[in-house]
């Protein structure tokens, strides 16, 4: 068990700066996910950590020692690749033996036919290690097959097995589930989480799928355009995003971002309806309020706190219904999540009224940064000040 730190990492490919001064501390034993849209630099960061790519500036520190000059295998990390990268000419057994052979045997012992002949004991020891891992991954019946004869899920397991045999201090995974079909992907999520618990080892996991990041990680780092925008537990990232890009990226369907106006006291008016929330600076133009689909409710009749919207599309997912609505005469679009019983009679082109649940909305300014809401006390004080 060892902690890993990436310090001030910069990387450019030609004139394209992929990573811009990235700092990241990975604690021992955690499942850390790097998540972001494609091209955000997350894979490059992982490859710099692995040693497959050299950073232009910055340090990679593993267990308090700088490994900038250390070759990948000597960093004692293992990697699972998106395409699994199994050696197609070797059987599953040989694929899993390869990292052990290269680490533990001398070049003489690795000679094609003579090696196994003259050093039977070390070979048997390595074989036993592989068999043990294969048993835990339930691939012991596949050991004689070639990767070409395996299904996607089985290849995935073999790739995991090849990573596990060396008992590395951390597993690096570069979108390992993206080549699997949807059902298997969901299944493997649970299995990877279980594996993480039982191995008690550090996982660094790269994905573009926010659902994978949300479901598996202890902490996740949302990356965009070469920066880590936010690092935190999935819950924190979901409930308390500090940047509009993070808010938009995490959660499905996307968070509703509605342009709002404030009155002279800084009170937010959502689609013309005043809310109980206020910001410190009023008259701010292009202020946006972020509301998750589940933070909005459909009300049957107009109330003081609700605003009208026209249904453009009704998306039925069985357990949930997502209503796509046009508000403020169609100038803005939002999505509301509702239970099927609440919206049973509602279809396209119907007008419904939407209210807020008790949760606090998130407010973002023009540049996409979070704006703090005034606490209720401050609001009252301000109002009194205005009156007197």
């Amino acid at each position, binding site marked *: 068990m060892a902690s890993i730190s990436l310090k001030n990492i910069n990387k450019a490919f030609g004139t394209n700066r992929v990573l811009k001064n990235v700092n990241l501390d990975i604690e021992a034993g955690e499942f850390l996910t790097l998540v972001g849209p494609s091209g955000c630099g997350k894979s490059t960061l992982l490859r710099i950590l692995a040693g497959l790519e050299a950073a232009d500036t910055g340090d990679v520190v593993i267990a308090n020692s700088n490994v900038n000059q250390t070759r990948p295998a000597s960093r004692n990390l293992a*990697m699972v690749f998106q395409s699994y990268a199994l*050696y*197609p000419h070797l059987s599953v057994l040989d694929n899993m033996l390869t990292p052990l052979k290269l680490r533990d045997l001398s070049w003489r012992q690795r000679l094609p036919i003579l090696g196994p002949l003259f050093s039977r004991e070390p070979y048997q020891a390595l074989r036993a290690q592989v068999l043990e891992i294969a048993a835990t991954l339930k691939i012991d019946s596949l050991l004689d097959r070639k990767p070409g004869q395996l299904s996607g899920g089985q290849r995935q397991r073999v790739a995991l097995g090849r990573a596990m045999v060396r008992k590395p201090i951390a597993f690096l995974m570069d979108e390992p589930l993206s080549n699997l079909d949807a059902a298997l992907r969901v299944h493997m999520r649970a299995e990877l989480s279980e594996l993480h618990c039982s191995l008690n080892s550090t996982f660094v996991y790269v994905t573009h799928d926010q659902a994978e990041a949300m479901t598996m990680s202890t902490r996740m780092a949302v990356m965009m355009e070469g920066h880590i925008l936010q690092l935190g537990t999935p819950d924190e990232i979901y409930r308390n995003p500090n940047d509009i890009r993070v808010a938009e990226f995490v959660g499905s369907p996307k968070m509703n971002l509605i342009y709002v106006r404030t009155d002279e006291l800084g009170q937010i008016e959502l689609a013309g309806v005043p809310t109980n929330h206020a910001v410190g600076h009023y008259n701010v133009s292009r202020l946006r309020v972020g509301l998750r689909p589940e933070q909005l409710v459909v009300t049957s009749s107009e109330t003081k706190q609700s605003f009208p919207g026209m249904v453009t599309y009704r998306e039925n997912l069985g357990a949930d219904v997502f209503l796509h609505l046009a508000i403020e005469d169609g100038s803005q679009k939002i999505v509301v999540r509702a239970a099927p019983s609440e919206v049973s009679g509602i279809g396209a082109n119907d007008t419904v009224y939407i209210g807020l649940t008790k949760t606090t909305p998130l407010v973002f300014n023009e540049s996409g940064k979070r704006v703090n809401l005034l606490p209720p006390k401050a609001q009252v004080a301000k109002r009194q000040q205005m009156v007197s």
Partner: protein
Amino acid sequence: MAKTAQNSRIHIWFVSPALALMLLILVLPIVIAAGLSFTDYSLGGSNPHWVGLENYENIFTRSTYQKMFVATFTYVGVVVPLSVGLGLGAALLINSVKRFGDVYKTIYFLPVMAALLAMAIVWEFALHPTIGIVNKTLAMGCGTVLENWTWYATSCAKTFPLWLTDRDYAIWTVAFIGIWQGFGFNMVLYLAGLTSVPRELYHAAEMDGAYSSWEKFRLVTWPMLGPTTVFVVTITCIRSFQVFDTVEAFYPQGGGPSKSVYVMMFAIYEKAIQQNLMGVGAAITVLFLGFVMCLTLIQRWLVERKVHYA
């Protein structure tokens, strides 16, 4: 409906033109050649006689034909491994350089593009025993440390090899020119093969601890080039069996010094065309086809068994 479709013979009309052309153009000439190889037919001559296996018997007993086999297999045995190896080496080197790759590619491919008949004149000139640049350069080394090499010392004392007209050197010299001419082609094939090796496999090898280039080559490059290698070896074998233009250019009067460069293609040409002994020529042709057929079958077998891993 199904019954009429099955009973009708209309499909024969669809297949027959292609089948007829195939038989007429591809199969019939070989059958005729095979038939002629059992006769003493000569072009324009009347009444070819059936001689049975006499032509084949001659081929396997007479010393001329023994020389033919020795020359052919020496040529193939030298040219195939060396031009495949050099082609692979050049491809790996070019693949590893970041700049000037295209320049190297063009230069190595030049001999392939150049007509060998024209290049033969250049080689003949360069390898001339007395005025050729090769022996003149070698002579400049006399009296230096190179004389520690016994071969060099004796050559300095007597003469340097006559190369193309030397009985001991002729076939090796011709083979050298064959390699010079052929490895650029193999290099291009290997370069194409190298582009299809997935980058991730090299990264996986690096993560697994394959540090030296040799280990990566053994673990990734060589196995992944398997299909390319089978193809390259087969095509080089066939091309080497078919060598003719160099021999014809250097030795129009028959097979080099002591018939040491009397390769199969040249033998066919000499017997069938120059001496109008169609029967013998046809017999050598059939043997030649036999060798090539064997190579092709071995290739198919290897491709299906070994090098396609899916």
